[in-house]
C-alpha cells in the first residue's frame, strides 16, 4: 500500500478518475462512445512521441528537436510521394520516414555524445536548423491532396462509433494499431532486453554504467536515433490523421510530450520511468485538452490550463526527488542516534 502511494502512476490515475467524474457530472458527455473514440484517436500521436521522449529522459537526455524532425520528415516524404504519384504500399512511406527520422535523430545523438554539453542546447540548435531547412530550402507549403496510399489510409478505420443522442460519429483510425505496436516494442525493449536495461543504467549513473562495461556512446546515440525514428513515424501519423500535410502543425509539441512523460513519473534526473506511467500522462493531458470545452472553459484558456498541469506534474515528481535526496543527505550527515530514523526513511 505504501509502495502504491509513492508511485506517480497512482496519483495520475486518481487525477484522471476525478477529472472524468467532474466532466461527466458537468456535461454528461464524457462516457459517450464518440467522445471516448475521439480521446483514443487524439492519444495516438502524443502516445508515440511521448514514449520516445520517455526513453530519452530515462537516459538523462532531453530533446526539443523531435517536433522539427517529425515535421521535416513528414513534409519531405509526403512531398516526394505526392509529386511522384506514388501508388505502392503505404508502409514503405512509413519506413522511409522512420529511416529519415533515425538519421536526423542520430545527428543529435552523435553531437550529444561527443560534446557532452546540455542536450537541450544541442537539440535547440538542430531544431532551428531543421526548421530552417524545411521552411527556407524546401519552401514548404500545405499539401492538401496527398499521394493515393496516404489518402486511402486516412480513410481506413477500425470502426466508427456513433453517439446515439446527438448523432455525431467518430471513427477510430487504423493507425491506432501503430500506437499499440510502438507500445509493445518499447515496453518489451525497456523491460526485457539488455539494451533497455543499459538505458536505465546509463540514466541512473553514466560513470558507473561505463565502468560496468556498457558502451555509453552507443546508448546515447541510440536513444536519440530511436526518438528520431518515432518522430518520423509520428510525423506520418499526423499527416494521415489530419488528411493533409501542414508543415508547421507540430510547433511547440515538445512541451506537451515532455510534460506527459514527467507527469507519468519519468524522473528528469534519469534512470526512472515506465511505459505505463507515460501513457497515463498522455491520457491525462489529452483529457484536459479535449474536454476543456465540455467543462465550459473558453479555448484561449487552454494554454494556461495545460501550463498549470505541466507545472503541477513536473513539480510533484521533482519535489519527491528533492525530498528523497534531502533524506539521503541527512542520513549521511547526522550522527549515530539519528542514523536509525534516517535508515528507516531510506527504507521507506
Amino acid at each position, binding site marked *: 500500500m505504501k509502495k502504491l502511494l509513492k508511485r506517480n502512476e497512482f496519483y495520475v490515475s486518481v487525477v484522471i478518475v476525478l477529472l472524468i467524474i467532474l466532466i461527466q457530472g458537468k456535461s454528461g458527455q464524457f462516457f459517450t462512445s464518440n467522445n471516448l473514440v475521439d480521446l483514443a484517436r487524439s492519444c495516438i500521436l502524443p502516445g508515440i512521441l511521448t514514449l520516445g521522449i520517455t526513453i530519452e529522459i530515462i537516459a538523462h537526455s532531453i530533446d526539443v528537436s523531435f517536433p522539427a524532425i517529425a515535421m521535416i520528415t513528414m513534409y519531405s516524404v509526403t512531398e516526394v510521394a505526392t509529386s511522384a504519384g506514388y501508388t505502392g504500399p503505404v508502409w514503405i512511406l512509413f519506413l522511409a520516414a522512420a529511416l529519415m527520422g533515425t538519421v536526423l535523430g542520430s545527428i543529435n545523438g552523435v553531437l550529444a555524445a561527443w*560534446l557532452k554539453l546540455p542536450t537541450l*542546447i544541442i537539440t*535547440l*540548435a538542430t531544431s532551428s536548423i531543421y526548421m530552417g531547412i524545411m521552411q*527556407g*530550402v524546401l519552401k514548404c507549403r500545405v499539401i492538401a491532396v496527398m499521394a493515393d496510399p496516404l489518402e486511402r489510409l486516412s480513410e481506413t478505420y477500425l470502426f466508427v462509433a456513433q453517439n446515439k443522442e446527438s448523432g455525431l460519429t467518430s471513427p477510430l483510425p487504423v493507425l491506432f494499431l501503430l500506437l499499440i505496436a510502438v507500445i509493445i516494442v518499447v515496453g518489451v525493449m525497456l523491460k526485457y532486453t539488455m539494451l533497455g536495461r543499459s538505458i536505465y543504467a546509463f540514466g541512473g549513473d553514466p560513470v558507473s554504467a561505463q565502468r560496468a562495461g556498457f558502451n555509453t556512446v552507443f546508448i546515447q546515440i541510440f536513444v536519440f536515433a530511436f526518438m528520431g525514428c518515432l518522430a518520423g513515424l509520428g510525423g506520418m501519423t499526423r499527416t494521415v490523421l489530419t488528411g493533409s500535410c501542414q508543415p508547421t502543425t507540430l510547433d511547440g509539441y515538445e512541451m506537451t510530450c515532455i510534460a506527459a512523460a514527467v507527469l507519468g513519473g519519468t524522473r528528469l534526473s534519469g534512470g526512472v520511468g515506465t511505459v505505463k506511467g507515460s501513457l497515463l500522462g498522455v491520457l491525462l493531458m489529452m483529457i484536459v485538452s479535449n474536454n476543456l470545452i465540455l467543462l465550459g472553459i473558453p479555448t484561449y484558456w487552454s494554454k*494556461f490550463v495545460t*501550463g498549470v498541469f505541466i*507545472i503541477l506534474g513536473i513539480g510533484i515528481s521533482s519535489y519527491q526527488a528533492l525530498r528523497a535526496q534531502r533524506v539521503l543527505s541527512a542520513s549521511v550527515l547526522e550522527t549515530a542516534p539519528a542514523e536509525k530514523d534516517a535508515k528507516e526513511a531510506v527504507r521507506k
Partner: protein
Amino acid sequence: MKTKLTEGLKTRRMKDGDMLRLLVIFAVSFLVMTILEPNIFFTKKYIVSMASLFPEYGILSLAMMLAMISGGIDLSIVATANFSGIIAIKFLIRFYPEGASALTNALFLLAVLVIAICVGALCGMLISFLIAKIGIPPMLATLGGADLIMGASLVLTKGSSVNGIPAFFAEVGTKTLFGFLPVPVIVFAVCALIVSFLLNRTSFGMKLKMMGSNPTASRFSGINNGKITFNAYVLGGMLSAVAGLLMISRANSARADYGKSYVMQTIIICVLGGTNPNGGFGKVSGVTVAILILQVLSSGFNMFPQISNFYRNIIWGAVLILVVIYNHLSEKYRVKKMAQAMEKKKSESALQK
C-alpha cells in the same frame, strides 16, 4: 585534477583570448558586410537602425546570461517580457487621459516602467520558487513557466493583439537623441552597466559564479543557494520586462507571442560571448560584443532579399553548434597542452633530484 585544470584555463581564456577573438569576429563581419554592400550597409541611417534593434534581445541576453552563470537556463524570458509588457500597457491604455501634458506623460512612463518591472520580478519569483523550492530543473521550470506565463498573456489578450497605445509611448521608445543615439541603446547601456556592476563589484556576483561552478561546494561554504537563485531569476525577470516594453514601443502593439525566436538568439549570444552553459562563467563585455556580431550578421542578411528569413534559422543553429564545437575542441587542446607541460615539469624536477 583535470577539472581544476579546466577551471583555471577557463578563467584565463576569459581574460584574454575570448574578448580578442570576439572583437576580431565583429570587425571581420562588419568589414565583409561593408564591402559587400557599401552603399546600404555603411550609411548612418542603416547603422542607427541597427542600433535601435539590438537592445531588445540584448537585454534579454543579459537575463539569459544571469541564468546561465547560475548553472541554469531561462527559457521564459520572452514570455515574461510579453506578459509584463501587456499588463503595463493595459494599465496605460486604461488610465491615460486625453491630451495629457509632458509632465503627466513622464509620470505615466515611470508608472509603466515600474509596473512592468514589478510584474517581471513576480514572474522571476515564480520561476525561482519552482527551481529552488520545488527542485524542478531550471530548463523545465522555465519551459513550463513560459507556457504558464504565455497562457496568462493569452487569457489577458484573448489571443489577439493589444492596440490603441497612446502615441507618446511609441515616440519615446523610437526616439533618436542627437541624431545618432537611439533611446533603446541608452536603456541597454544602463542595464548592461547595472548587471556588470552586480556581477563584478558585489558579493552577489561572486556567489552567483561560485554557485554556478559548483552548487555543492557553494552550499557547504555557507552560501544560500536558494537566495542566489532567487536573485538571479528575479533580476532576469526585471530585465525581460524592460525588453518587453522596448518591443511594444517598437511594434506599437502588444501580443502574447511576440519575439518567439529571441530565445534561441539569446542562447547563441551567450554561448558565443563566452558564457559557460554549464554555469560559473560569463561576462557582460563578451555578451555585448556577441550581441553586436549577431546584429551585424542579421542586418547584413537583410540587405539581400534573395536570402529568405528562414535561412536565418539555419544560420543561427549552425553558428551555435560550430561555436560549441570550437569551444569543446580548444578546451580539449589546452587541457592536453597544459597536462603535457605539467608532465614535463614533473620529470624535470625528478631529474634534478
